[in-house]
């Protein structure tokens, strides 16, 4: 057998500093987190809210979170799996769905804080850059966009959610540089292109292309759309209806399921000392039995 020098010696392990747990899991960027949650000391206990947007393969999570020493508390949250309640059944992770989720969260928070009449936001989504104007009575709800570990590229769905929250009436410092439709050459946001993306225009044009050129691929790729009867032409009006439904009733609905009496276990339960000893004795018995059989065979 070739002699290989051990790469990770005992000394390596003794000196190894384990990163923070969420860094090990690759879920939290601590450099960004420190800068987002750090509150001015002369503001004492005033919470600093983050508008958190995270994407999974089939869902979008939008939350308003504030940080405390015991843990972050979520003020309000909206998921794209709630959108079927407002009439959107398919395409729950695209740019338009992100816009809807951000809009839902924004209206929900404003309703929760009883500011929804004062701050209507941008009712007719045009795709132009819109910032909330403070009214005389109360200042708008301020949050800071928390992207997580996503690479900021122009046209990312995260900024779709941001646009939804802005149009809902939240005050989130931003620039239009990363919205879909911003051209680097002109250094300007093309409001029409952005409007197209907000209403799923890019999805509709792809549907039309596939219907023309590759009908089988269209059937397989957009099967859910076809099942629900959504066609390229009625996508825009569908999203308009969803926006109106969200503005009408953004309140969160409590699920009727009772909370489980016993929490689901995701990891193995730790064995007691007696259990571990018993397991060892069992293993030794098994080894002895197998060893006895082998020696009988050999003889």
């Amino acid at each position, binding site marked *: 057998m070739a002699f290989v020098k051990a790469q990770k010696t005992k000394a390596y392990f003794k000196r190894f*500093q384990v990163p*923070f747990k969420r860094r090990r899991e690759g879920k939290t960027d601590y*450099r960004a987190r*420190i800068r987002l949650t750090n509150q001015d*000391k002369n503001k004492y206990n005033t919470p600093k809210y983050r508008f958190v947007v995270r994407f999974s393969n089939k869902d979008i999570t939008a939350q308003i979170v504030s940080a405390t*020493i015991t843990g972050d508390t979520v003020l309000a949250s909206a998921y794209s799996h709630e959108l079927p309640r407002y009439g959107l059944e398919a395409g729950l992770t695209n740019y338009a769905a992100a816009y809807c989720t951000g809009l839902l969260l924004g209206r929900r928070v404003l309703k929760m804080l009883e500011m929804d009449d004062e701050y209507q936001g941008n009712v007719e989504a045009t795709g132009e850059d819109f910032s909330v104007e403070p009214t005389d009575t109360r200042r708008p709800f301020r949050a800071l966009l928390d992207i997580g570990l996503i690479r900021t590229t122009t046209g990312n769905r995260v900024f779709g959610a941001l646009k939804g929250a802005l149009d809902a009436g939240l005050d989130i410092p931003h620039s239009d540089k990363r919205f879909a439709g911003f051209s680097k050459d002109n250094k300007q946001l093309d409001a029409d292109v952005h409007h197209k993306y907000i209403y799923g225009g890019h999805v509709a044009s792809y549907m039309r292309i596939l219907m023309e050129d590759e009908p089988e691929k269209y059937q397989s790729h957009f099967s859910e759309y076809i099942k629900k009867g959504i066609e390229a032409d009625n996508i825009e009006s569908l999203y308009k209806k969803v926006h109106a439904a969200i503005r009408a009733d953004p309140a969160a609905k409590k699920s009727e399921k009772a909370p489980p009496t016993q929490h689901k276990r995701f990891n193995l339960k730790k064995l007691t000392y007696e259990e571990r000893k018993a397991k060892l004795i069992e293993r030794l018995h098994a080894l002895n039995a197998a060893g006895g059989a082998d020696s009988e065979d050999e003889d």
Partner: protein
Amino acid sequence: MPAGHGVRARTRDSFSRPFRKKGYIPLSTYLRTYKIGDHVDVKVNGAVHKGMPHKFYHGRTGRVWNVTKRAIGVEVNKQVGNRIIRKRIHVRVEHVQPSRCTEEFKLRKLKNDQLKAEAKAKGEIISTKRQPEGPKPGFMVEGATLETVTPIPYDVVNDLKGGY
């Protein structure tokens, strides 16, 4: 080469981060709030270069007299010559920890208030003063056997048997 007297002279060990605790500092340091009048310990965090106090103040405890956006004003006693001066320094929150020096006092205050309220309700008079530890009470020694030890007369022959 002459000895240097720079601001961070002789701080190689005191300002260095502890073993396996380097890198990003945990968020609770940033989330704590400090009010004027709180007692704080000054402990330099070598990972953060801004708002570091001078090495003299490392390990000192003082009171908060000012709170700004990212830093805290701490009033620390310093002996200069034959007198003690109250020095006011500004330190970033990463180099400050809440002090537990008044914790025992605050707990005792609460307990005493509670005891006094109970005594008032019952109508009896109590003293909440702390008493110093007195002499230990007397006790009987148990299980002791007496062994009388007497010197034996010197025996030349026996003692020299070993080696001569």
